[in-house]
């Protein structure tokens, strides 16, 4: 049951800005979406952390591919009267396992994802077309909706999030090593292949969580954009995850708060906030790299300027 049906704040006959932003009855609405806000915040935490590794491993495309299969799983569950969240988790994990097993090299991976993604999306569209129920439910899977998250659903989301976050913390160092420096990590005995599979599973779970809130099409806004923004302004292995989590939480929670009063899906708000954060970070980061990342003494080794210098001298 969506919030809009509980408290009718705006209708299609209102002007577009009132359909986007309306803060009548805001207090009453807030109380209703308490659980949703908590879910959004936790999703921000998961997305922000996972995103750091997605960036390091250059797997943005995989995230998109997994989310389409997650959508197909959720749509199938909707059609067959099963639990939608369980369906989306099943779809995610299946996609993550296939991509993880078949695509250990980047080139293979991209083609496998390219094959899987339209198939998943097509299946999802088929299931939705066959589903006789309300259209709002269908659309929500793709573009997100603030569902009234009941306590059962919330504890379910929280448990999966806990699994993802705790697992990530346990494998944090070797996963970082294997992601940024695979050759040396393997030489040092780090089980790079096993870690890669474990990460794929965690990524699958994270995507399934995100699909619940922002929808399958816009999962990237919580799993990629915050981490991408963070890497623009810092290279510290401590600061980047913290900023990434902060950006993701602000996007998710901010998006829910703004979407409350409106009559449009939640995802435009979430994606816009995370996009604005990214743009600001790029501008800040650009200034930083133009000035040189740190002050380096000009003496020392003359001509030691980088062969692949990042910024042309302006």
């Amino acid at each position, binding site marked *: 049951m969506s919030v809009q049906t509980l408290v009718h704040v705006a209708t299609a006959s209102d002007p577009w800005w009132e359909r986007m932003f309306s803060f009548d009855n805001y207090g009453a609405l807030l109380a209703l979406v308490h659980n949703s806000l908590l879910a959004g915040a936790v999703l921000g935490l998961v997305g922000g952390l996972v995103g750091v590794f997605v960036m*390091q491993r250059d797997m943005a495309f995989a995230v998109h591919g997994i989310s389409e299969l997650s959508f197909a799983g959720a749509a199938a569950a909707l059609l067959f009267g099963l639990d939608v969240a369980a369906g989306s988790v099943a779809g995610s994990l299946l996609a993550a396992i296939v991509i993880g097993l078949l695509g250990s090299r980047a080139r293979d991976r991209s083609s496998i994802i390219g094959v899987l993604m339209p198939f998943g999306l097509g299946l999802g569209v088929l299931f939705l077309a066959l589903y006789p129920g309300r259209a709002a439910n269908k659309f929500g899977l793709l573009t997100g909706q603030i569902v009234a998250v009941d306590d059962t659903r919330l504890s379910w989301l929280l448990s999966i999030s806990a699994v993802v976050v705790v697992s990530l913390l346990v494998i944090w160092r070797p996963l*970082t090593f294997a992601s*940024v420096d695979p050759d040396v*990590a393997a030489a040092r005995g780090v089980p790079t292949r096993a870690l890669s599979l474990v990460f794929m599973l965690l990524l699958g779970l994270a995507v399934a969580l995100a699909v619940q809130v922002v929808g399958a099409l816009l999962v990237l806004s919580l799993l990629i954009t915050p981490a991408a923004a963070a890497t623009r302004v810092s290279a510290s292995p401590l600061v980047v995850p913290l900023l990434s989590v902060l950006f993701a939480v602000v996007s998710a929670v901010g998006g829910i708060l703004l979407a409350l009063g409106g009559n449009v899906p939640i995802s435009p708000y979430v994606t816009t906030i995370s996009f604005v954060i990214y743009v600001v970070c790029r501008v800040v980061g650009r200034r930083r790299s133009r000035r040189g*990342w740190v002050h380096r003494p000009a003496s020392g080794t003359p001509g*030691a300027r980088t062969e692949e210098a990042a910024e042309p001298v302006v």
Partner: protein
Amino acid sequence: MTSAAPLALQGAGLSYGPRTVWSGVDLEVGRGEFLTVLGPNGSGKTSLLQTILGLQPLTAGRLSILGRPAHRGSRDVGYVPQQRRIDPVTPIRARDLVRLGIDGDRWGVGRGGRALRATVDALLDSVGAAAYADVPVGLLSGGEQQRVRIAQALGTRPAVLLCDEPLLSLDLRHQHEVTALIDRTRTTTGAAVVFVTHEINPVLPYTDRVLYLAPAGHAVGTPDEVLTSDKLTALYGTPVEVVRTRGDRVLIVGGDEHSHHVEEAS
């Protein structure tokens, strides 16, 4: 006090099914010794590194590091890879890469701490990379990256420093700097250096002994003993000529178009 050699191979051999890559390798590399491993592509140089790292078991003989069998993840072996482009936005600074060399194989997040930071600073300082400790690795030049790599490999105070074509894709000046640094490292840390390369000339002045892996066998000895026309002709099973230039560079010219292997003066 007698201590076991950093690296010892006795009758070591490696085969994949019926194909023998190398066999009967007897070799002991002492503290601070510089061993250069040469050979054409496919002669098993990389496999040799894999066995020393404990990632690939020998099919014959024994291999020991400080008297103990090689094992995966040994902290007694440091590894310097070839230079590889790292994306400039990858969030990893020089100091982080070095730190991963110390504790990147451990579970958990790691607490860092002052002692660890001091160790990392000292390592970076020892390779002359202190000035760019906080620069993302992707923004460093090839030569700078390789310095950081050496610091990373030294993080566990290894007895053996494995260098896997570390000069590849470096220009001549950086090749000299990096080899000189590796040479200095073996005297300061006492680590034995096993340097795999397809180009002997940059490391010739530092090389104590050469292990030459070739299609028809292998040879161990000083460069003067191994890098002769007779020896290499026997190893390749086809006429090979070794030419020494006046600048004391070595040119190896193969007679057979397919197996030939030219060490050009770069």
